[in-house]
């Protein structure tokens, strides 16, 4: 009797509560339509590098002078912002603007965390094409770019008197100079890392996903197409000639270059200070031509995006335009050393006259943004492994790429099923 009545009471309460359930729909939508009032305050999440935060705070003060809107700058690691936005947004504590590397955009759009921008052609035409492409998902523009980053060729002036004219010259020099017993190498790069070896695939005519107008077709994967196999064969030659150790990683590569044991390496702007501190006298040039063609490398673009939870989309977009204007990005370059993806600034004497930065800037015109669709996340590891198997001589380029593509397709299927 007792037990039974307890259960009954719980059941009754449950039923009572369940019958009159659910949220009250008051018919409001989160669409920013119509004229929007000036907000008191806008919030922006900036990556937690001190110099970047300082720069943005300075700019925020200027924006407040111009418009009277206070801008709150919160420092938060860029790789954590998407996760945090998906938690803070629904709770109504989210920011108006966020920032992260462009390869997260597809995922953010898929989750509905950011919303398309309404900006004029004249705003977007100031930027270099790859940067705008990086900000575009499914043909819609979702952000404005602030920074572009890509690799270039560093050469040690004590070993190579002048920059190599072509990739072929570089390989020839490496065959001459490399002596694995002495741990000295002519030319090194992280050959088993798809980010670094992509230029070989691209030059030989390979592709990752078929590209349409601002869209990628994830069903059409060209990583084992004829061109890609040729690119992988080029890579294989380096390993067969023992020019590059099979499991070279970034630490080892940097260590060897800083010891002055390597003629040339492919690396990015992040390594510049490290090499300078080691006292190496080096020069930087764009990646030399492969079979007479200027190689295309990957670029990573960091942009600003408009949160889907923002209640002031118009003014947040104004702030975004302000922070990505030519003057603002020029100042950002002076403050942080980050290369602006703005055509006019890349040709500006400020950048042109800096021997090192100008090489990265020059190469940035010959880049393709890493595909920003979520399916791209599945490409890295299999492609790195394929290169590893080829480097070790376990598989031929064709075999390695075929099984990599099969795995990429499997993983995409697994991700989507």
């Amino acid at each position, binding site marked *: *009797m*007792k037990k039974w*009545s*307890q259960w*009954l*009471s*719980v059941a009754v*309460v*449950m039923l009572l*509560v*369940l019958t*009159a*359930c*659910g*949220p009250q*729909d008051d018919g409001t939508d*989160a669409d920013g339509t119509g004229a929007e009032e000036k907000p008191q305050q806008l919030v922006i999440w900036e990556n937690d590098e001190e110099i970047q935060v300082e720069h943005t705070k300075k700019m925020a003060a200027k924006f407040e002078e111009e418009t009277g809107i206070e801008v709150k700058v919160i420092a938060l690691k860029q790789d954590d912002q998407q996760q945090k936005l*998906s938690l803070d*947004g*629904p709770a109504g504590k989210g920011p108006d603007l966020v920032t992260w590397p462009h390869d997260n955009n597809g*995922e953010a759009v*898929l*989750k*509905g*965390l950011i919303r398309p921008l309404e900006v004029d052609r004249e705003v977007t035409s100031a930027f270099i094409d790859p940067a705008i492409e990086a900000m575009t998902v499914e043909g819609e523009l979702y952000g404005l770019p602030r920074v572009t980053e890509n690799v270039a060729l560093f050469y040690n002036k004590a070993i190579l008197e002048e920059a190599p004219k072509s990739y072929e010259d570089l390989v020839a020099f490496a065959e001459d100079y490399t002596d694995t017993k002495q741990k000295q190498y002519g030319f090194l790069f992280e050959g088993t890392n798809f980010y670094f070896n992509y230029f070989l695939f691209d030059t030989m005519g390979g592709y990752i996903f078929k590209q349409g107008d601002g869209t990628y077709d994830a069903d059409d994967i060209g990583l084992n197409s004829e061109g890609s196999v040729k690119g992988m064969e080029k890579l294989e030659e380096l390993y067969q000639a023992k020019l590059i*150790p*099979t*499991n*070279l990683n970034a630490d*080892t590569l940097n260590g060897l270059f800083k010891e002055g044991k390597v003629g040339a390496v492919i690396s990015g702007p992040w390594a510049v200070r490290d090499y300078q501190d080691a006292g190496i006298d080096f020069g930087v040039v764009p990646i030399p031509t492969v079979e007479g063609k200027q190689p295309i490398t990957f670029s990573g673009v960091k942009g600003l995006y408009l949160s*889907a939870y923002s209640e002031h989309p118009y003014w947040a977009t104004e702030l975004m335009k302000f922070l990505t204007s030519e003057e603002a990005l020029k100042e950002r370059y002076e403050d942080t050393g980050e290369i602006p993806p703005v055509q006019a600034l890349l040709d500006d004497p400020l950048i042109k006259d800096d021997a090192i930065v100008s090489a990265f800037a020059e190469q940035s015109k010959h880049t393709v943004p890493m595909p920003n669709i*979520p399916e791209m*996340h*599945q490409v890295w*590891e299999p492609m*790195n*492994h394929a290169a*590893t*198997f080829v480097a*070790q001589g376990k*598989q031929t380029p064709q075999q390695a790429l075929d*099984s990599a593509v*099969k*795995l990429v397709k*499997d*993983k995409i*299927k*697994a*991700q*989507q*099923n």
Partner: protein
Amino acid sequence: MEPQRQPTTSRAGSWGKRNTAALLSVFSMGLGQLYNRQWIKGLLLLILQFSYIIVFRDIFNMGLWGIVTLGEKPFRDDSIMLMAEGLIAIFLILFGGLFYALNIRDAYQVGRMREEGSRPPGIWASFRAVTDKGFPYLIVFPSFLFLVFVVIYPLLFMMLIAFTNYDLYHSPPAKLVDWVGLDNFVALFQLDLWRNSFINVFSWTVVWTLVATTVQFALGLILAVLINQKRVKGKRFFRTVLILPWAVPPFVTIITWSALFNDDFGFINQMLTTMGIGAIPWLTDVFWTKVALLLIQFWLGFPFNMALCTGILQSISSDMYEAAEVDGATAFTKFRHITLPMVLYATAPLLIVQYAGNFNNFNVIYLFNQGGPAVPESTAGGSDILISWVYKLMFDISKFNYAAAISIVIGLIVMSLAAYQFTRTRSFNEEDMIQ
């Protein structure tokens, strides 16, 4: 039930005051108490009940609707938030139900006291009864509440996710998450890609757990026995040196070993090359990666076991050994029949903990080679164990639902392993061991 109605001096078994009081309390908290003339207690319970309903009304409403439907309109309803809210609502209802049951029981018991002719206790006496008889419960209650929300709540949340389709393509706010029943578990064993990965990872996990833990314990025991010999001079020195691997943070140790094992530049391969053996592909060959991982785990794991066994060895009385020597036992026989049983008897629980620990030893696997090297056509690396594979599923392909499903499998395995081991040790206990 007897047909004729009795006056208040009823016997047990008939419908008396106790049942009336209990029934009134079923309708609403406090009514039975009021009927029992416990005015203050009844009033307090009534107020408690109505404030509970008023305060938590919204949470019940949203939470229960949310956990059943997981939302109906994208952007307005965030499925994951609703699931969290729903769990809280259910917890609150369970707590409420517990109180409700206690109130019915109380009304019933007081009713019985009145039938037996004794006066119902006043409010002060009731309070005293709670603090006296229910003292342990009163003290445990806050920590129990804490435990429910810090341990049980996240666990249940994780388990619930295993029965949804929560992944990258079903993520709030743009999409809703739905209940899918057992689909994830079925998919894990049906899709070729997943089944193969699961079988490979699972078998290596079992081998890794058994070999790593058993050998690290055996090594520790052997070293402890050796150092414990009477003839050994400088016991303290040896102990200190051998304890050192335990003193360095394992995080640092593993990364250092990873560098030492590097195929081309590592110190170990350089040494092997100068010795004329030739370099071994420690990081690029699955078999050798597993060997290296085991060696590192032995190195990390033996000092603790050595310290443990040393303590136990010193507590075994020397009478037994002397008696054994009189009977003409060899050193091995003494070890086999005295030392080993005594040590195992004392360390069994800790040994189980170590087995479970290695089963989920994420640090060593992930820091040494990120679960690599790559294996053609598998979603996991060659040396991945279940726990590091779950990590990859979460962060590489955002399959939160699969990761949760495999976590449940891991949990079941560890629990059954522990249960089995504990029953085994109980059989140990039943042997006549000398204290």
